[in-house]
């Protein structure tokens, strides 16, 4: 007989084990889906998860995709830890890219060491500005941040679309929806000859270190933890709730904005219509899979980045539709949430007694 018993305390070991379990279950379910679609499950999984990162180029692509995911997820973990549901990181990424792209275009055909820092800063500010909208509306007008931040995603993409086909489009660009190429001084340097991985990865690593420090070594980190645990307790302790809401939104906006900078000043070097394959949404999954822990988020961003690459490889070699990547991402989150049940409940097998 199986009996379900509530644990006295959530299990810490299981807290870090369930993400692994979730990934495993996703692979099993994914294999099953491939089988239903008429593919050999193991072969398909191999093309999805191993082939894409088997060589130097693939590994660089993995890091390239993991960088924005990690950066955004670190920012989101500030929000999620303190019970703020910012799900519009995709919009903050886009707006950050717009502002930093605009600044980069101002320096068109100019060179100078000072250009890149300004461009990067502009991206962070753009992201912060955009994130401040749901934050301010939440704190002062009691407006639901989930819906506002999400609606702003659509708006940001339309602003970008307007700019790249309209006022910012490349005058010599034969009406392609893209801007001019940024000057070399406005681009993040590539790290290795022939690979696309660029210096943006250091931004992500810096975010990891800083967030770890803030979470575990500062009073602010403690306040966030308490507010996430119980808003009532936080109020009772006298924390300034409004200030914190705005602060965590600004932090996550800045991170998303920086991710946007990486996307446009990295290998591409211009603004165009589709700067992000929904990194802002996928990063929500990364944040959860990484347990809102900076180190966990590094691993989670690598795992989830594979689903992007795998989807591309599987499409080329096996004609498996590329959306399978999204299906995998959704499944990871489903299984992760489901296996969290084990955090709070124990499953006991008891011999039947008469």
């Amino acid at each position, binding site marked *: 007989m199986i009996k379900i018993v*509530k644990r006295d305390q959530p299990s810490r070991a299981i807290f870090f084990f369930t993400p692994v379990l979730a990934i495993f279950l996703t692979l099993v379910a994914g294999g099953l889906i491939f089988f239903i679609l008429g593919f050999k499950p193991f072969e398909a999984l191999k093309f999805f998860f191993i082939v894409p990162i088997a060589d130097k180029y693939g590994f660089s692509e993995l890091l390239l995709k993991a960088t924005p995911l990690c950066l955004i997820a670190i920012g989101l973990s500030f929000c999620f830890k303190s019970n703020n*549901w910012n*799900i519009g990181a995709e919009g903050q990424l886009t707006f950050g890219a717009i502002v930093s792209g605009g600044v980069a275009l101002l320096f068109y055909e100019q060179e100078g060491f000072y250009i890149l820092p300004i461009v990067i800063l502009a991206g962070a500010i753009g992201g912060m500005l955009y994130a401040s909208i749901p934050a301010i*509306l939440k704190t002062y*007008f*009691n*407006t*639901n941040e*989930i*819906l*506002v931040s*999400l*609606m*702003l995603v*659509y*708006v940001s993409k*339309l*602003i970008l*679309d*307007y700019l790249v086909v*309209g006022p910012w489009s490349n005058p010599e660009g034969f009406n392609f929806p893209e801007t001019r190429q940024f000057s070399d001084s406005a681009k993040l340097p590539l790290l290795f000859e022939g690979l696309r991985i660029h210096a943006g990865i250091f931004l992500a690593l810096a975010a990891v270190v800083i967030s770890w420090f803030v979470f575990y070594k500062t009073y602010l980190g403690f306040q966030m933890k308490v507010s996430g645990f119980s808003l009532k307790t936080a109020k009772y302790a006298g924390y300034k709730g409004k200030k914190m809401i705005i602060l965590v939104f600004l932090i996550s906006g800045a991170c998303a904005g920086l991710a946007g900078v990486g996307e446009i000043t990295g290998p591409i070097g211009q603004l165009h219509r589709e700067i992000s394959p929904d990194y802002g*949404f*996928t990063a*929500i*999954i990364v944040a*959860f899979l990484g347990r809102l822990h900076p180190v966990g988020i590094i691993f989670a961003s690598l795992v989830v980045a594979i689903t992007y690459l795998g989807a591309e490889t599987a499409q080329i070699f096996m004609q498996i*539709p590329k*959306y*399978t*990547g*999204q*299906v*995998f*991402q*959704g*499944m990871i*989150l*489903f299984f992760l*949430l*489901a296996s*969290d*049940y084990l955090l*709070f409940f124990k499953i006991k097998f008891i011999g039947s007694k008469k």
Partner: protein
Amino acid sequence: MIIDINFIGLIIASIMASAVPLILASCGELITERSGVLNLGVEGMMIIGAISGFALMTVTGSLIIAIFGAMLAGVLISTIFAFLTQTLITNHVATGLALTIFGIGISAMIGKNFVGIPGKEFPVFFEGLKDTIPLLGPILFGHSIVFYFAFALPFITSYFLKKTKIGLIVRAVGDSPESASNQGINVRLVRYACILYGGAMSGLAGAYLSMIYTPQWIENMTGGRGWIALALVVFSTWNPIKILIGAMIFGGLTIIQFHMQAIGVRIPVQFLTALPYIVTIIVLVVISRDSRKIRLSTPSSLGKSFHKDN
């Protein structure tokens, strides 16, 4: 300038047509939320409904199978959400997001083979009566069964919640699951039912889009309507009749945007397209500013998990 009165009637009718999916999905979500469950997966369930309806129509050729199949698909996908949030007590927000991401992926995967296939004509009622009454003719006649159902639904929903015993139970579960449970009501069962019903309505809303409104399959064709439907529930302060008003406003924004483009208003098309999203934000701000009113009308246990004993 002479304005053709029938032209105005046609515009109103087209606003109503674009309001249909919003009304359906919002009324479904309203019931779900009234039972205390916040399902953010509306966009995902809607897109699943859209592809299921279109695919079934293409494969079986039967409109009836397609419509009910789309609703069933909505039910099936929302079962995942119900199982996770009710049986495994997961966080409503995160689970809803997962549902939307999963739904968009799955629908694109299934829909790959249905891109570019023309839809079928959907039967409409009273087509001949359209010209009999000025203004009202085009508004009242010549629509599909789903259209008429959608405009009846807010009233049915209102009656259900206010006047029926089951409606009372749903409200009790949403407002105070503990006392409902003490009264011997199976909270989990009620919530399961409300989630599945919400799934069916979202599925129907999606099918309306892909089978009747713009009869074809386009990836991501719901285009945020699921999220607007969620916003409409807040807008309505959980009152089904007000959903009707909200949906007409948003339908109006969509339609006006087309007409402004057609008559050559010199506003960039992107700004017009962004209008419904921006207005949603403004409306949410106006509604939510009165925090007391929101607190009084929000189902008290909305978004909170309930687990008996333990």
